[in-house]
């Protein structure tokens, strides 16, 4: 899943480490989410979106999620 996390971090001059500490996860998890290798859980996605003052849909790109 694509995300705007890297863009948002650069805009707010936040490192991966700082974002990870702010949302209670590890830097490796943030890296994996940014690369699209790992999909964040609902709770973590909410925490990340809330940290940037945005909604989940504004941070995470759901356009590629197939509808059943």
């Amino acid at each position, binding site marked *: 899943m694509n995300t705007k996390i890297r863009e948002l971090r650069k805009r707010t001059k936040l490192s991966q480490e700082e974002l990870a500490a702010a949302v*209670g*996860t*590890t830097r*490796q*998890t943030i890296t*994996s989410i940014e690369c699209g290798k*790992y999909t*964040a*859980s609902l709770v*973590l996605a909410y925490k990340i979106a809330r940290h940037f003052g945005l909604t989940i849909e504004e941070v995470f790109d759901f356009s590629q999620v197939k509808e059943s």
Partner: protein
Amino acid sequence: METSVERMKEILRRRLIVGSFLVSGVGILIALQVYNMFRPFVGGENYADFLSGVQLGLLIGVDLVAVFFLAKYLGLLRDEKRMRESFVQENDERNAAIAAKVGVSSYGFTSVGLVVAAVVAGYFSIGAFVALLGAMVFEVLVRLALYLYYSRKF
């Protein structure tokens, strides 16, 4: 779920208590092994020195690992920042997902490995064959029990 500092300290203290019992218990087993206290009960002359050495090495290994973790937990109790970082690492969702995948994937490999080993061992030693078969049955029973437990929990 967020874990408060007090809850983290409580968890670490409980681990320290359990770890201390483990270190003491294994220490007693090591002492018994060193003084050959088990020899009269395990076949006497048939109890090979090699086997005794391997068992002693395993017990010492378990004790060293337990002591390492006790020292780590004591250190964490004294440093709140490191304690929080440690708990974040332990409870990280990506690490948990990796561990779950490893558990599921490795079950197939170990099951097939045990079956093959049991078949091959059966040509050489009935004791080894029964031990490997027992290990396979134990693995299946543990998996079944965990499946039932987690099916009810979630």
